[in-house]
């Protein structure tokens, strides 16, 4: 199952205007891991994600997905392997109806007829959005859009799920449902997020990016205990690890 491995070696990326967004990033994510990439605004999280399915090309360094190095020849295969869910579902849902949108990837992979139908319904059922199949994307609520956006990627049966800020802009209930949904997936998962409580629930491993470099890479709970590290990287403990602001009880380091 070496398919599900993501390996990044000494990755560097500079934008055309000269900004160095990533300076020497290396990590290896193995099969079935659920990893959060966190960091302050502008730390390079999104730039890193865009490398993972080959939208941006590294200025230096190497990326391997499964057995393949990422290059022009392997790009189609890698784009199928790495399912990328973007932050704004409006960017992801560009077809006239939910059905067309979920079918977009599979059609490009050559599916048609009953097989395509099965694939689309299956993906929508998995995210609990089967009833939305005929709707237009602009008639959906935020939570529904997010679910359908995930279905558009699931329909291509990817091995690795990459999601940029999955809980962004969702109401508490929709966020809760999404977390439960993601917990059920057994793909290799990579998230970026500022929602550290979600990270605590979903990811056993966390990578902190700061100024385009990896500052920490280890078990999520350990990293979130390191107050000094967190504040150096413009982060803070997840709320669930802070003390209760009303009764003052809870873990150490509660706010005054």
């Amino acid at each position: 199952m070496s398919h599900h491995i993501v390996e990044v070696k000494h990755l560097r990326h500079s934008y055309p205007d000269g900004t160095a967004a990533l300076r020497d990033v290396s990590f290896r994510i193995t099969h079935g891991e659920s990893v959060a990439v966190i960091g302050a605004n502008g730390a390079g999280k999104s730039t890193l994600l865009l490398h993972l399915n080959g939208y941006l090309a590294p200025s230096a360094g190497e990326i391997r997905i499964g057995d393949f190095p990422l290059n022009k020849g392997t790009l189609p295969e890698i784009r199928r392997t790495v399912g990328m869910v973007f932050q704004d579902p409006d960017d992801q849902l560009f077809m006239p109806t939910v059905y067309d949108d979920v079918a977009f990837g599979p059609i490009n992979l050559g599916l048609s007829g009953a097989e395509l139908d099965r694939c689309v319904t299956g993906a929508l059922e998995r995210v609990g959005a089967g009833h939305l199949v005929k709707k237009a994307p602009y008639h959906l609520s935020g939570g529904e859009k997010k679910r359908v956006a995930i279905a558009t990627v699931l329909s291509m049966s990817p091995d690795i799920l990459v999601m940029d800020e999955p809980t962004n802009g969702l109401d508490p209930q929709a966020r809760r449902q999404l977390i439960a949904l993601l917990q059920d997936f057994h793909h290799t998962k990579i998230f970026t997020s500022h929602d550290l409580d979600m990270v605590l629930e979903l990811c056993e491993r966390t990578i902190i990016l700061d100024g385009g470099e990896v500052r920490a890479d280890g078990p999520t709970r350990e990293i979130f205990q390191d107050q000094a590290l967190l504040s150096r990287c413009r982060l803070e403990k997840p709320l669930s690890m802070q003390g209760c602001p009303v009764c003052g009880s809870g873990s150490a380091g509660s706010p005054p």
Partner: protein
Amino acid sequence: MATIDGALLDFKRLDQLAAGDTAVHRLDPRAKVLATLAFIVSVVSFGKYELSALIPFFIFPAVLIGLGDLPAGYILRKIALICPFAFVVGMFNPVFDRGALVHLGPLAISGGWISCASIVTRAALTVSAAVILVAVTGFPAICRAMERLGMPAAFAVQLVFLYRYIFVLTEEGGRASRARELRSFGKKGRGMTSYASLLGHLLLRTWMRAERIHMAMLARGFTGTFARDAARFGAAELFFLTSWCALFVTLRLHNGAELLGSLVTGLFR
């Protein structure tokens, strides 16, 4: 129907109507597009003083509303929204064109009034045909039909994307404009200059969004062409198209209202 732009952009209902399942809905979109096109061409090809010959053309929207099971009131409201614009186009005709054309007893009606009424009638006819076409076909299906009829694929894709993102864009534009208004405290703000930069920002944001959408398409294996669904232009489509076209040609060449009138008066003579 709070504002004019809000109502014009209220495609939601049209989309829901397009999801209907009547005999008209099931026809191949190409037949409906061509019939509507033939209708519009026949209507606009009349001379500028023609009014009575236009009236029989209302049979096309009326029949389609009936067959397509559309809510007539809703369609009428959509048309009523456009009529003021058509009236503005024709409103100076009565001023400049004062020669009497029709005498109703002592009342002389000038050519200007007739041509103005003709413009409004034509607008009502063509707009109703277009609205009904969307309501029984759906915008994306119309785009695909036009592509199959020979429109370059690039235009079809553009139109589909326009329809998808016009909602996102108007929302973004609306938010930006509201933010400007809230900080200008009922005064003019900085006038046109602030609008200029607002528009510039919208353009840049659209640009960036286009880039992100392209990313999302590539991520799902987009190769440059959209898949086409199966087409079926059968006997029903042929019948629909030829019979409507035959009617339009007849009504264009002979004044239907006069024919009917002389038939009725002939019966009672």
